[in-house]
């Protein structure tokens, strides 16, 4: 029973295991499932093991039981945009009406469904213009302008989930936010970095070493001698170097900020430096890259076990990397091309990685990325990439 459904889920890319499918059948045969609602709840809690797949599950469920359209990627983007538009419409209709060149009072007469259709039609017309993520769409959901407390046609979006049929709930796609492709959030970064630790004994001797205690006691002929040890603490040293200059990194500021915030809490010994595009003779302690220089040469004095994490898009003109005096900043004249300095850093810290916010499939198109990849192991700044990077840094 429902084997199709199982395979539909699998096809959609949800990791469902046969074991859990059998468990689900056990639930069916125990008579625990008496309605489609039960079916929805039970199958989801038994088969799906992460909220990231809830959204996909909802879509497959709606498709299987109601024949709802399986979404095409394009349609999904449009849906999402239309939804964002609707939200900002609810917050402040006038702004949106102005943006669309429509009369607010005219839009006002449309029902929610008509509104969505209308938005979609408008978006389709204008795909050319809005592809770059025109700002008012991107930020539409969080328009800083206060809402006017005005609801067209008295409609509500979302909410009201108690007495809906399962299919309707599924069609709501409540779990969209958790989809895999979402942005890097703090807990995700935290989880990925968790394995990055180096345990060494520190602090007061407050843990009883049972084996040593027994040994010593025996040696003393039965006179008890309790041996204490220090407990293990994480003492990993980490250097984080962030490319914070230039417009090319601007789109990734949020992601990098998240990484940086987390690193600051997580590591006892964290040094953060900044650079622009690539590293020459100095890294900077201050974000303005002006006041507090740190000479790269001095890194040899640091513990070579330090984990060096460089975050940057590694995208620049080839001469910035290869030429002596390649820096676009006049005051950085060193006599050594940046690529030599990078090699020096990679040699000094064997455990170093380069995290690149540019998606991996784009790397081949940029010459400087390829050059740097040959020096530092490069990973994408995503959850997957972070995990691989941590794996690399913890490898013995």
């Amino acid at each position: 029973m429902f084997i199709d459904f199982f395979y539909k889920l699998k096809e959609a890319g949800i990791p469902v295991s046969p074991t859990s499918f059998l468990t689900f059948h056990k639930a069916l045969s125990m008579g625990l499932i008496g309605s489609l609602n039960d079916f929805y709840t039970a199958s989801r809690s038994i088969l799906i093991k992460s909220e990231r797949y809830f959204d996909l599950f909802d879509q497959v469920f709606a498709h299987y039981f109601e024949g709802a359209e399986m979404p095409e990627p394009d349609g999904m983007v449009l849906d999402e945009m239309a939804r964002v538009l609707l939200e900002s419409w609810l917050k402040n209709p006038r702004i949106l009406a102005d943006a669309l060149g429509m009369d607010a009072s005219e839009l006002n007469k449309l029902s929610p469904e008509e509104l969505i259709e209308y938005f979609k039609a408008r978006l389709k017309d204008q795909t050319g213009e809005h592809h770059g993520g025109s700002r008012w769409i991107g930020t539409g959901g969080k328009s800083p302008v206060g809402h006017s407390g005005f609801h067209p046609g008295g409609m509500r979006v979302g909410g009201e989930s108690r007495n809906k049929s399962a299919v309707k709930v599924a069609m709501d796609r409540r779990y969209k936010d958790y989809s895999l492709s979402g942005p890097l959030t703090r807990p995700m970064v935290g989880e990925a970095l968790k394995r990055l630790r180096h345990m060494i004994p520190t602090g007061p001797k407050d843990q009883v070493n049972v084996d040593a205690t027994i040994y010593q006691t025996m040696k003393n002929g039965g006179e008890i001698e309790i041996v204490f040890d220090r407990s293990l603490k994480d003492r990993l040293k980490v250097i984080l170097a962030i490319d914070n200059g230039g417009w090319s990194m601007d789109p990734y500021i949020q992601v990098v900020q998240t990484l940086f915030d987390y690193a600051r809490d997580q590591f006892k010994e964290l040094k953060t430096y900044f650079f622009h595009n690539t590293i020459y003779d100095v890294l900077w302690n201050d974000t303005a890259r002006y006041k507090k220089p740190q000479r790269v040469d001095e890194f040899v004095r640091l513990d070579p076990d330090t984990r060096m994490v460089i975050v940057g898009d590694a995208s620049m003109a080839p001469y910035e990397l290869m030429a002596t005096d390649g820096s676009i900043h006049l005051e950085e004249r060193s006599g050594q091309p940046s690529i030599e300095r990078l090699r020096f850093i990679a040699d000094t810290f064997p455990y170093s990685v380069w995290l690149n916010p540019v998606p991996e499939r784009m790397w081949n198109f940029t010459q400087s990325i390829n050059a740097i990849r040959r020096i530092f192991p490069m990973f994408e700044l995503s959850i997957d990439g972070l995990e691989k990077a941590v794996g690399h840094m913890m490898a013995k």
Partner: protein
Amino acid sequence: MTEPIKIIPFSGANKYILDEELAAIVNISMALEMPLLLKGEPGTGKTMLAHAIAEALGMPLVVLNVKSSMKLVEALYQYDTLTRLNDSRFSDSDRDVSDIEAYIKMGKIGQSFTADERTVLLIDEIDKADTDFQDDMLDVLDQMEFDIIEIDKTISARHRPVIVITSNAKKDLSDPFLGRCNFHHIAFPDPKMMRRIIKVHFPEIDTALMENAVDTFYRMRDLDAVEKRPATRELINWIRALKFDPDFKPKQLTKGDIPYLGVLFKKSEDYQKVAATVQRRRLL
């Protein structure tokens, strides 16, 4: 090992508001004898659920608070070598030194296995521990038994406990572990649900106060750039504070006069940001 399970439909406890979906999942997990893994934002009531189940079904609750350095053995049992060493040296206790079992103490999981009646076992924040911990626990939860190595004795669960596991992190636990659990993600309650939750905590709350407080709360939650968004717990404490203040009038909130922001926002940056926004806009 376990007697046939009576399915006692679980439908919420005194202080816990349960949505139907979650109730169904709890009942299914109990019937299938599978641990229920709960994820969700802090403050969505993951831990409270276990308390509520225990209360509703009249079972004792055993809580295992997972710590980052914890080994599974600690959760199962402890062998008190030092006391034994001491007893063997001074022999002034009534324990029999040659009987190792006298020095074995049950940990939380052990307690729930050996209890005289069926218990609810809450394994709280399992993601804090290493993946080893989860992997080791698999067998124990699967077989409902564990070995005490020192005395070569197998402890089997006398009554299969109802197991609730919570996790805060967004990351998945290991696959084999997930395979043995039922999974649910608790979303943050919507305003309607929130009103019901508040009603349960403050049965005779003034309607104006509740409406305004909930309204203001959700709008402040929506503010951008707030890192630690206030959760249910904060809202309840905040309402308690508002109720306690004799000078406070619910109308103030609609005018943008919001006292006790510190109850809602615990990080100083968040607090300053919100206070500034409230000051500037007076629209909250």
